[in-house]
């Protein structure tokens, strides 16, 4: 991966129902770095994430990728970004493999195949299982496997540890560390402390804004 990627946001402001959640937020995230967003419930973590990945527009300020606004198709932002939100987009009526194949078809596949990715998240042998019968934690792990099978520099993750047990938390922290070590960047919200030893960690606490 090339090292000249950068995610930058300037003077970001978000207003919800005439309440200012945050304003004048500035930050630059570079490869090998991880941005951890902290804050109380309702402090605007998810809103900030949705602004950073382009689902929502900021009320003020702008987000740029490699010095270009992310909405410009020439910035190549959406080719290099993967987002996992509260909702995982996994269809209950499709099997694990079918779900992952759809994810793969929509983006740029990485060199890791579906069975290897499932192996990494501890779901080896679940390819042909309907997602309906998976537990919440297992579904979460399928969503995390969808990060591995696609190529992207930036991962934007909203509470990725929800419903994960201790072992899978450690496994996933490992995966995140590996991603950062390979020159990736991560923006993540979490209520729990995240162990990212490989990354240069930046923390923003939205409650203190």
């Amino acid at each position, binding site marked *: 991966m090339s090292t000249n990627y950068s995610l930058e946001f300037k003077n970001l402001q978000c207003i919800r129902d005439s309440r200012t959640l945050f304003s004048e937020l500035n930050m630059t995230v570079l490869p090998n770095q991880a941005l951890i967003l902290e804050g109380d419930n309702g402090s605007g973590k998810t809103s900030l994430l949705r602004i950073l990945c382009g689902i929502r527009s900021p009320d003020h300020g702008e987000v740029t990728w490699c010095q270009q606004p992310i909405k410009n198709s020439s910035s190549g932002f959406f080719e290099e970004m993967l987002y996992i939100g509260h909702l995982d987009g996994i269809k209950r009526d499709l099997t694990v493999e079918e779900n992952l194949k*759809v994810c793969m078809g*929509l983006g740029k596949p990485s060199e890791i195949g579906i069975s290897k990715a499932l192996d990494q998240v501890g779901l080896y042998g679940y390819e042909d299982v309907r997602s309906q019968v998976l537990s919440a934690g297992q579904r979460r792990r399928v969503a995390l496997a969808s990060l591995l099978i696609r190529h992207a520099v930036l991962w934007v993750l909203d509470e990725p540890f929800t419903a994960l047990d201790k072992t899978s938390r450690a496994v996933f922290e490992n995966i995140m560390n590996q991603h950062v070590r390979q020159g990736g960047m991560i923006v993540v919200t979490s209520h729990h402390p995240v162990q990212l030893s490989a990354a240069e960690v930046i923390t923003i606490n939205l409650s203190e804004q």
Partner: protein
Amino acid sequence: MNHSLTQAFWTLLRRDLLLTYRNRAQAINPLLFFVLVIVLFPFGVGPDATLLKAMAPGVIWVAALLSALLSLESIFRSDFDDGFLEQLVLSPHSLSALVLAKVFAHWMISGFPLLVVAPLLGVFLGMQGESIEVLVITLLIGTPVLSLIGAIGVALTVGLRQGGVILALLVFPLYIPVLIFATNAVQMAESGFSVTAQLSILAALFLLSLALAPLPAAAALKMSLS
């Protein structure tokens, strides 16, 4: 279309068809509704053959319109609810092309079956030979328009909890031209006139909505998500 966009298009189309297959019981509802409305009509208005024959094009087309409306929400609703729509919007491909894949899938599920049963229902209402042929042609050109225009309406209302009524109000005025020209074509064919003009206008409506509907639908989806 570059290679990966083509791949994304087919992936999405296959996914939607597969999902429908897994949910067959629900997917058959619009077709059942279409057949029931038409079959019940003669019981309501009486067995007057000339009256039924005169009403047949209108009845069949109104039933097609209502059954399309019944199935429209399914284009985006479940994907909105489970977060898949976010993944679509954030994919590197053009959202309008992906919307087109979903609309195409919707037409294959809800529009195409109508084409198959319409000739039978036409015979049931006393239509004959050439007018049945014209009926099928109007459905072939007209039902994709219903799916395409409907997609804009659903994209606009998918974020609302009670979007159903607004959807109908938004979409029906735009359906009326299709209804008028399609039924008129079938009536003219029944009386033995040429229907080239009506079919041309229907085809124009189809091409216009094919070219213009995916863009506002994609924009409306982005708006519904933010």
